[in-house]
Every structure is written in C-alpha cells, then in structure tokens.
C-alpha cells in the first residue's frame, strides 16, 4: 500500500511518518496543522470538527491518488481528526515521500491546500463569548 487516509479522534505526526518512510525515498515532507489559541484577535477555547466521513475519506483518497499518479510521489499519508480539540493539539497531518524533495514539497502543499477546499470536514471555533462555523459566511 502506498497511501493511507484516515479520520480518527487522535492522530500523530509519527503515524504518518512511519507509514511513508522507506529506504527507497531520500526525502519526506510533512505538514502538521494544529489548533491555534487565537484567531482574529479572539482567544479560542476549543474546536469541534464534524466530518461526512465516507465522503471525506473518498476525497482524501482522490488527493492521495493525484499526488502519486501526477506529482512523482511514492507514498502519502493523510490523517485528519474528528471531534473536539484544544489549542495546540494536532488536527491534520500529511506526510509525503518522494525520490525528489522538490516533488515532495509541491505534493504536500498541494495536498493540504486541496484538502481545505474539497474535503467535507467542518470546523467550529469556540470562544469565551460564543461559537462560529469557520468560513461558513462570506
């Protein structure tokens, strides 16, 4: 297997790294996204992620396939959490192994950019005085 897509309540960089690392690829590029403690000058108390899980997994797999078929990637892991997270906790990890590091950088950035545009996952930010679904309104 050259791709791993997973939605879980807890994910780590190490899981993704362990999946993609192999002695035939010299370089691994990883993106790790964490909950920020402040957004638009407001203190974030927690986040909640809701997933349309079967479709989200399919969209994550499309991203993985594109990087392998078109971008020179050997192995890719795309992990996303679901449920509640506190500031500092990891919500998404993408790890890419490729023979050429420029390809690994390009594919990892493509994967996180595309995930944020197409994968049906929704983030609700909780503040001390309320809550909001992120990016829902113009």
């Amino acid at each position, binding site marked *: 297997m050259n791709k791993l897509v997973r939605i879980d309540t807890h994910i780590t960089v190490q899981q993704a790294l362990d999946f993609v690392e192999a002695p035939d690829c010299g370089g691994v590029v990883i993106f790790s996204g964490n909950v920020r403690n402040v957004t638009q000058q407001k203190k974030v108390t927690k986040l909640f992620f809701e997933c349309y899980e079967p479709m989200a997994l399919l969209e994550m797999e499309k991203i993985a396939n594109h990087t392998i078929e078109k971008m020179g990637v050997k192995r890719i892991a795309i992990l996303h959490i679901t449920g509640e997270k506190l500031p500092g906790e990891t919500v998404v990890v993408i790890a890419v192994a490729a023979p050429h590091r420029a390809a690994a950088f390009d594919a990892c950035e493509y994967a996180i950019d595309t995930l*944020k545009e197409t994968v049906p996952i929704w983030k609700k930010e909780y503040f001390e005085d309320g809550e909001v*679904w*992120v990016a*829902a*309104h113009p």
Partner: protein
Amino acid sequence: MRVLLFGIAKDIAGKPVITVDGVNTVAELKSYLYKTYPRLEQLRSLMIAVNKTYAGDGQVLQASDEVAVIPPVSGG
C-alpha cells in the same frame, strides 16, 4: 428522499437528516432548500453531494441516492 445535512446547514435545518420529495434534480433540491431554510442562501457556498461525490446542478436524483448538503468546508 433522505437528505443528510452537515455543519452549519445542520444547525440551520435543526436536524441532521430531512426528507425531501418531489425534486428531480440537484437544482430543484437547492431551490427547495433555499425556500424551506432561507438562511442557507447567506452561506458562502452550498454544494450537493450525490453518492459521496460533488454533483452539478443538472444532475438527476434517484430515490436510492445518498444525498448530502455540503456547506463551506473548513477542515485542516
């Protein structure tokens, strides 16, 4: 036809699943949704997924399809 709702769309409808009858296409479903839940029109975008794939307005809906309302995504 059962229609799944997520994120803010679920909050606006007040439930995670609604039943919609008499709509034959994605466009007709959207019209029904905007009429029934006008706050959906204020969202940055509204997509419909049919059988776990994004669907264009012209797509015909079958009773057996898995249909879902996808408000603006914000994963990552």
